[in-house]
Structures are given as C-alpha cells and as structure tokens.
C-alpha cells in the first residue's frame, strides 16, 4: 500500500474498522485481516495506522477493549463495538454513500 493511499483512507479507516467489528469482537490482527477480506485484498492496514486508530476510537467510546484468549489460547486484546460505535457506523455509512454517489455522478458527467 502506497503512503498516498493511507492519507486518502484517513476518514474511511475508522469506518472500515467499525464495519469489521460489526461481525463480532476481535483483536487487532483479526481486524486487519477482516478489512483485507472485506475489501478483497485492496486494502491492507499496517499496525502503524491500525493501532493508533483503535486506541483513538476506544477513547472516543465507539469501541471498547478487553483482554481475552485467542483460538490458540494466547492472550490478546479484543475490541468490540459499543452502542455509540454502531451509531457512528450508521452515520458514516450514510455519509459515505452520499459522497461516493456524488463523486460517481461527478465522474460520469
């Protein structure tokens, strides 16, 4: 992933993380793989962007964190969506829809 893409994705990273967590609680690597999967490999999120975003969103109250055990009984930090996070996802999805529609319109015109 080129650095330009990261900056382009700045606003959408939050949305993608929230979307991933909609499927259930997961740890950082899980979120990263889930985004890869959701975007069919278009985006891979580096830890350097992922963790700051996770921590910031936790502070915003959109997600909450807890320590749990992974499939292989390894301790890992898990994140889950909060009520505020769900609301935020709805808002962002709606906004994104409008923006992408507008941009698509603009590009087709």
């Amino acid at each position, binding site marked *: 992933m080129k650095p330009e893409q990261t900056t382009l994705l700045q606003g959408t990273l939050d949305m993608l993380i929230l979307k991933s967590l909609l499927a259930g609680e997961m740890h950082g690597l899980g979120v990263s793989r889930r985004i890869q999967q959701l975007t069919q490999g278009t985006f891979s999120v580096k*830890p350097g962007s992922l963790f700051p975003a996770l921590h910031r969103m936790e502070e915003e109250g959109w997600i909450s964190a807890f320590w749990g055990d992974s499939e292989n009984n390894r301790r890992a930090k898990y994140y889950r969506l909060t009520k505020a996070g769900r609301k935020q996802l709805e808002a962002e999805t709606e906004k994104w829809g409008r923006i992408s529609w507008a941009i698509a319109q603009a590009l087709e015109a």
Partner: protein
Amino acid sequence: MPLLTKARSFLRNLFSTRRVEKDLDQEIHSHLELLIEENIRAGMSPGEAARAAQIELGGAEQVKEQVREARLGNWLYSVLSDARYSLRVLRKSPGFTIVAVLTLALAIGANSVVFGVLNAMILRPLNLPREQSLYGIERVGQDDPVQSYPDYLDLRDRNQSFESLAAYRITEAGLATGESASRIFLLEVSGNYFDTLGIQPYLGRFFHASDERGPNSAPYIVLSYAFWHTRFQGDCSVVDRTVQINKHPFTVIGVAPSEFHGTLLFASPDLFLPMVNEEQIEGRNVLAARNIPWIYLALGHLKAGVTPAQAISDLNSIGSYLEKTYPKEYNQVRFSLSRPSLYDESLGSRVEAFLTGLMLLAGLILLAASANLGGLFAARAADRSREVALRLALGAKRGRILRTLFTEALLISLAGGALGLWGSVVLLHGLSAWQPLPRYPISVPVNPDANVYAVALVLALVSGLLFGVVPVRQVLRTDPYQIIKAGSTGTLGRRVTLRDLLLVVQIAICAVLVTSSIVAIRGLVRSLNSNFGFEPRNAMIVSADLGMAGYNGDKLLEMQKRMVEAMQTTPGVESVGLIDWAPLISGAYADSDVFTGETADLRPSNAAAVSFLFRISPEYFHAAHTAVLSGRTFTWHDDKAATRVAVVNREFASKIFRSPAKAIGGFFKIQDGSRIQVVGIVEDGKYKGITEDPRPAMFVPILQSPSRETILVVRSSLDPLQLTAAIRNTLRDLDRGLPSYIETWSKELDNFAFFPSHVATISLGVLGVMGAMLAVTGIFGMAAYSVSKRLKELGIRVAIGARPKEVLQAALGRAVKLLAFGSAAGLLLGILASRVLAFIVYSATPRDPLVLGGVVLAMALVGLLATWIPAQRALSIDPAILLREE
C-alpha cells in the same frame, strides 16, 4: 456519555501512564506473536516466520510512538515528560542551574519590586471610583499647590468644567476622649469632599455641603477605618459620641471605608473634619482672607466630555476675573491640572520620572540577565552537541530536541520568576509597613496586587523564551555525522558575534549603574558635610504643640518664653533657641512677598522678591550656630512696642538692598504694609530642600510676630538619650498635658531633607551591585567557555614555549577587550545619566576624579573577579596531559 468516556481516557492517559504503557506493550507483543503463529500456519519455518512478522509490524517502538501520538492529552503528557527529562538534565548540573535560577530571580525580583512601586504610585494610586477623571488644581508659578479659601469658593462656584470641586488640607491636632490629649493627623475637608469623590461611609454618615453654615458651624468628624480600630477598638456605638479636639467638642458621625485613606497617597489621616471649623483647630479664622493660601488642593471630577485643556482655559478665565476684581492681591492667576494623589505636579512628575528611570534600569538588568543566560545556554548546547547529534542519529526529530531545550529554559525562568516574585512580595510588604518618619503618618502603600504577579509571570516567560532561543540555530545546524566523527572541537568564531555584542551591552549597563551609584554616594557624603547655614550636630529638636494644649495670645508668648528659660537651666544645655518652622525638617514654610522700602503700591507684581519668613527667639542664631555676618541679633526688648526689626540672610540683603553693606539699618515692606528695619545679616543657608539655590530669608522676633508653632533648638554635647530624658522632665514640670516630640537635629535631617537622596542612593546601590554581579557572571561564562574550547590550542602554545603572559593574552584577550570597551561606553552613558540624579541628590556631579577613579576601579575588580578562575585554568594547562587525553 462520550464526553465521560473521553474524560476517563484523558485522566487515565495522564495518571496511569505505567498501566497504559504496559497494556500497549503487551498488545503489540501479542500482535507480533499472533503474526508469527499465522506465518507458521502458512508453512514458514519459525525463523522465517519471526522475520516476516517483524517486517509486517515495522518496528514495535515506532508503532507505540504512533499510538502515543494519537492519544488524548498527548500534548500535555509530552510536555510533562519533557519537563521530567529537563529536570533530570538540570539536576545533573546543579552549579549551572543554581547560577541561572539565582540570576533570573534577582533580575525578575528587581523588576517586580520596581513595577510594584510604579503600579501603586502611578498606575492605581488612590483606588477611588472613576479616578481617571479626577484632577487637582494648581496655581502656575507657585511652589506649593495651595489656594486661599475665598479662591477655592470662587473656583468651586464659577467653573463650568468640574462636576463639583472639593478641597482639603492635612494638619495635626490633639484629640481627647478623656483626660489627656493625644496627637492625631487629620484632613480638614470641604463639606462636599466625600460626595465629590463618590464614596460611601462604612458606618454612620458623612457630612455634606449642606452641613456648612459659616465658620465653626459643623462640629462633626468622620473617623478613618484604621483609627476607628486602633483608638475605638472598632466599637460601633462610637457614632454620636462627642470627643474633644484642641479642646473643642466634636461629634463622631461616621467611619470611612477601610480602603479609603484620604486623597494623598503618602499620608493616612486619622480622621476627617469640616474645613469651616478651621478656627477651632488652628486658632485663626482665615476663611475670609484672600491672601492667605492654606488649602492644599482643590480637586474634582471633570464633567463628561470636558477635556483637561478646556478645563484649564475655563479656570484661567476665573483667574482673569480674580486679577480684575482684586488687583491688590493678585498679579497673574493661571492654573494647571495635576494628578491629586502625589501632592503636586512637581513632586508627582519627579516621582514618576524617578520610577520610570528605575523601571528602565531594571528592564535593562533583566535583558542583561537574559543575554547572560542565553550565552550560558549556547555554551551548554555546544558542549552537548555530541548528545544532540546522537539523539538526532537515533531518529529524534529536531523539533523535539528544540522543545526539550525550551523546556529547560522555561523551567529555569519559572523557578527564577517564582523565587524573584516571592522575594519582591516580601520586600513590598515590608516597604508598605515601613513608616519612614516616626512622627508623621507617612507610608508608602505599595502592597502587590494581581498586576504585579502577572507582570512577573510574563517577564519570566518572555526572558525564558529570549534565552531559550539563543541555541536554536546551533541545534538546527547540527550535522550528526560530522560531529560524531570529528568531536566537538568546533573552531571559535573570530568575528564579532551577537553574543559579544550582548556582553558589551551588559558590561555597559553595569558601568552605568556603578557610575550612577558612585555619583549618588559621593553626593550624599558631600551633602552630609556641607554647610546648611546651621549646625545640626549636637543639637536636639523639641517640638511642642501649644495650640493643642490650648495656649493663645499673651499666654502663648509667656509660655514660649518660659520654655526657653527652663531649657536653658537644664544641666548640660549650652544654648536654646526657638523657631516656628525649623529649616530643612518641616513640611511647611511661611514665605512672604517683600517690597523695597519706597514701594507704595503693594501689589504682588511690584514685589522685589519672595522670601522665607521665620519667627525666632533672640537666642536662635546662637543655638543653631548660624553665623551672624554683621549687625546685631534680637533681644527680648524687640517686642510689640519697639520698631519692627528683622535679621536677613546675605541673599536677601543683596536682592533687596543691592549689597549687604547697605542693608543694615535699611527698611523694607511686607504685604500688610508694615515697614521693617534690617538690624543684622546672617549667612545663607538651605531652608526647604538641600538641592535648592540660595534663596532670600528673613527672621523676625517672635515677640513682634507671634506664632503657635514652637520648635526649640537645644544645643548640648550631652548624650542624646540622657538629654531627651532631661528635656522631657523639664517640659513636664512646665505643663503636664503638653504634647511634645524630641529628636536629634541630624536624625530629623535624615528623615526629611536627606530622605530622597537616601532612597535614590540605596536603590541605585542595590541595582549597581546587581548589575556588577550580572557582568561578572557574563564575563565569567564567556571567558570560561573560551578557555575550555581552546584548551588544545593553548596546550600547543604552552608546549612550543609560550610564556604565561602570552597564554593569558590568547585565552582572555577577547574578554578583557570587551570589558574595556563596555566599561568605557557605560562610563560615558553614566555621566550623562547623572545629570538626572542632580535633581534628587545634592551636588551630584560626575565630573569628579573620585567618581571616575571609582568606576574604573570597580570595573577592573569586576573583570578580575570574572576572569580569575578561567585564568587559573589557562595557566595550569599541562600540555603533556592534555595532548595525551585528546
């Protein structure tokens, strides 16, 4: 809800740093392990898996740092961690830290003390409502801002510019609630005084204009809050009580609010009393006398929209009216406006000029201190260039390094500021509680307020930024590769640098301060030994208030005569004289227009001179050791029945009679038309202030011109304490209830005449010492730095045979050159500045070989002190050891 979450995270980030960090560390660690696991599952060998995982993670520390930067409250956290780091660094060099903090504490302390005084005196003087529109009225061309009562009434009733015009004067009286009277200070005020100023009583009521119905019609007093507490223990039932003032009954009607101390900044009166009752206080009725000015000041608020210039032209039109209506009394009547808090404009502007000058000096000192610290910081940054380079090489951002440097500077400046502020607050409180004149309620109320704290804080921050900014360029230019490779033996610049310039400025400032303090001290010493026209040593001043004790008319004269006689028979007393206002130690003086003996039209414009007027007993000149140049002095036979006679000083004789020889036996006239014959001539003296030019003075016998003011000059070589007790006994035998005050004449001179020069000398001395200390640290810093930077070069010089003198020249030549240059510049400036001093300090002149020599000596000492240690270090260089080390 989200706000609460945020607040919780913010607090957690700040206060449970360790837990948050551990959590983050574990999370990154587990992320790495999960990655490795994933890679192994994908079929890699454990080694390969770990490597690939590391690559994908991309540096655990970097990820952590990115997370930290995203955290809430990150800026505050990083500021705190910078502060912690800087504290650690500073603790490692305690010498540097202590010198820096103390330097700043001194400089900021000096600034906040001077600002505190300036603030109290000039910026918020009286704490009255709407003070900016409050003005006092002064007659142009008069020494004192005094008016007669009828003048005041005309000004009050005819002006269009003031909302209302109040008047006051300060005086003393005896107050008795029971048997014996005690001395109090009071303001005699016009009835509209409190209403004009717009203040409300704390207790009871104030008197108003409507209470004035002619002489002695308003026997009311208002107590000051402090006096109510000390004398009446804050008793609320004091209202409506009757007390005796100079043996006349007055009713207490109210208490003024605690923050109101009258309209004169230096003096806090005990009570306020209507001016129409003047006769009961002073024993004379001058309410109708147009030619006796006795009211200190008329003051009031300008009406909205009236400018000071308009008010002055309005007042001057009243002046023209007065000239036309009373041509005999007035010559030219012009008015000016003044700030009312500092007595009059001439004092006010002098105080302001002096304080502004001091403020400027203090500012310069702070600037010098900042320059100094800037130099020290730059030197430190250079010494630490290896550390900086290492940090840069390890990936620290330059901004971050600069921030730690600034944090260090700010920490030092805040510590210095806090210390300096603490010192200045202590000093200002001490100054406020100080009563320089034990006899009068004079104080300097300069308690610090929020302004002072704010100024100290701003000064601390600004100076911190100032000296913090000096090493910035150095850090920005640091090339880690070059420095680590070559070591920090950067070449010392040969050209004139900003740092050199700062040092020269600083030395110049120091030299200015040293010059002016030496000039001030020389002036003071000279004035202590100069001739005042009397001899203050071995003489006591006994002032007795006969008015308070109820003496009047013939009883007064008889009592005065008895006092002189009784003193003369006191053992150990050589001679005794009586005078109404003793020269140089009284706040008030009588003067009079003097006309030549032939003048018929006695209007002021025809006066030949204005002369001081002293009323004395026959033995005064003998007791005061005033030299009689020719003619005779008085006897007790120069009484009402005899020809009116006077003894005049030489200046009077030459002004009125052209020459002293013609004066004896000649006649002159005074305002009331009396012809007075000159019978003797005495030497000139100083009468009102030690810096005054020779002025005419006349002395008349107390028998021909009675006065209630009674000051005895008692000459004796006895020990003052012993003498005081003897005098007190004698007075008690004469009248038990007579309020009196006894002090040596020299002490009184210190209190009055020398007071301003003492203040000026002390403050300049303190500033001078501070300036010298700063110059020493500045030069020391520079010299020590240059020696340590050039150790290698100096070692080589020694190795190839340089002699100690040459080594010193190489090591310190630059510092000495700067010192010489700065001193010369400062000396020149100081000589210019001393002209200002001449207004305050008697015969302050910089054209004095002792001053020049003193300055050169002082600066040489400063230089020696500052370069001693670096010179020792340069001389003790052992090339063998040095070259082996490098």
